[in-house]
């Protein structure tokens, strides 16, 4: 069996006296979507930051293709093909599609000191990359990113990552701020990225979205992995209960019931 693209082995992370992550072990394979579920404050963002090189784990190891790696900076991680797409996708709303696509890696024409930014080429490549993901509504690279819908911006960011050779795609709550239709759109793109052989880490707290695309699920509670299972192993209700911490949910229900009872008596 081949090595997973990315593996975390017994990762711990603490900030001073505060332990944020305990003993996290996860693997992601090519062509697989790993859904990372967790409520707010469960440690999802810290885990993403470790994967994308922003934070260095306190202990534990990260492996890529079976060999240990360490990321000292976000550039280290992106240099190895790990791309992170944040909630709002394109971060340069006032730039044109072509310009924002190539920030830091602009295509140029001409030579020596007369190298100029090749806007036409940038626009063409950007538009083609987005179209490869089935978005045909965008046909002008001069449009401003801020004028695109939330789903289109996410798609643009994913297309950009794929164009620049990403092998692992980390999607940080890509559907959280979107409507139903837009979210479906992004999920379709996630599926396509998976088909292209990328390993996808999909972070969300929307169980329905996770179940639509996920192959493998991990539930994070208070910095530990509370459950790790494959597609079809658990139902939606079971997962939701897990995320809310099971017993906490039951307690809440009991509380509401007794409140209603008191109100009735009074």
């Amino acid at each position, binding site marked *: 069996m081949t090595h997973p693209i990315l593996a975390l082995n017994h990762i711990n992370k603490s900030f001073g006296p505060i332990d944020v992550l305990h003993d996290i072990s996860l693997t992601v394979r090519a062509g697989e979507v790993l859904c990372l579920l967790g409520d707010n404050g469960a440690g999802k963002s810290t885990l993403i930051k470790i994967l994308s090189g922003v934070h260095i784990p306190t202990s534990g190891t990260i492996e890529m293709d079976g060999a240990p790696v360490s990321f000292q900076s976000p550039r280290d991680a992106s240099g190895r093909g790990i791309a992170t797409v944040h909630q709002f996708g394109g971060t*340069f709303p006032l730039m044109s599609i072509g310009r924002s696509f190539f920030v830091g890696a602009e295509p140029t024409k001409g030579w020596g000191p007369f190298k100029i*930014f090749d806007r036409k080429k940038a626009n063409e490549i950007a538009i083609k990359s987005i179209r490869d993901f089935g978005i045909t509504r965008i046909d002008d690279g001069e449009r*401003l990113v801020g004028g695109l819908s939330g789903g289109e911006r996410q798609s643009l960011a994913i297309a950009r990552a794929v164009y620049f050779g990403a092998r692992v795609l980390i999607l940080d709550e890509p559907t959280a701020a979107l409507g139903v239709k837009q979210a479906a759109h992004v999920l379709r793109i996630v599926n396509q990225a998976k088909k292209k052989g990328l390993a996808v880490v999909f972070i969300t707290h929307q169980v329905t979205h996770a179940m639509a695309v996920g192959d493998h699920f991990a539930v994070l509670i208070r910095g530990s992995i509370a459950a790790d299972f494959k597609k079809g192993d658990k139902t939606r209700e079971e997962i939701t209960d897990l995320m809310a911490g099971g017993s906490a949910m039951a307690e809440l229900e009991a509380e509401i019931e007794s409140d209603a009872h008191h109100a009735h008596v009074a």
Partner: protein
Amino acid sequence: MVLIRNLFRSPAAASVLSLVATVAFYVLVGRADVLALVSAASWLNFAANLGIVALPVGLLMVAGEIDISFGAMIPAGAITTALLSGTYGLPIEIGMLGALSLGVIVGLVNGILSTSTKVPSLLITLGTLTVMQGIVLWAAMHLAGNASIPLQAPAWAKFLFGQLINNSHQVIIAWWIILVGVFGLLLHKTSFGNWIYAMGGDKTSARNAGVPTERVTILLFVFSAVSACFVGMCGAILFNTTQVSGGMSYIFNVIASIVVGGVLLSGGFGSVMGIFIGTLTFSIVNKGISFTKINPNWANLVIGVVLVLAMVMNEYFRKRAFHYGSASK
């Protein structure tokens, strides 16, 4: 048609309209003589002096930074040139080199302080503005004994930097036009320009994408301080003397010109054509009023109204640029 459609999506759109509206207002309501207004040197000289500083400061604003220390760097450039080549009698080349080097040094200080601390560049350059004012005044009073330092530049320097074409138009206008071309190419046609936009949009993302944000910021601050020194130097060569406080009103005028030109105060949006036309508009509003029958006491009112209108239009055109294309399903 395409040209017009593209214009209305560009950051320069509102400034073009403000320019047309201002001239129309002065001619139709203010009964200004069109020919006299267009051929007048006053506003064009004023515009060129503002414009040379507005270009690099505008780029800094697109990159999400700001520099106000140029208010002291203009007199600093003048005083340095006049001290070295007037008071100490050194060749004018040395005076000019000294002025521009001072710009490089102060630009480096501004840039390094802005990139190595989290203090906003407005506050940092407010500091260097005040420090440089102090140094300039001290240098003039102690080294030359007077704030007006006499300077006699040789003919070639006069020709290049201090000439009055037709006895009215300062040669600095030509420098301004050249620099509009240079900065236009830099912002719109190079990777460097793309980095400036990206930094104004989101500095952290730009850095993660591989943009050398610190180097770009420092370089832009150097451009800004050197340009201000250049304007001061040209003024000293033209007028054969210097003024210590000459540059202070520039701060408001330059920033107003840039913003009228459609550059977003918070960064990430703007164009060199916009800065250029914004400077023209601001200068005509400011100096053109004396060509009209409008009572000069109304001057500030008119300037204020035009500024506010230009800002509102900028907002409108920015929205248009955003939504362009999203209607075509």
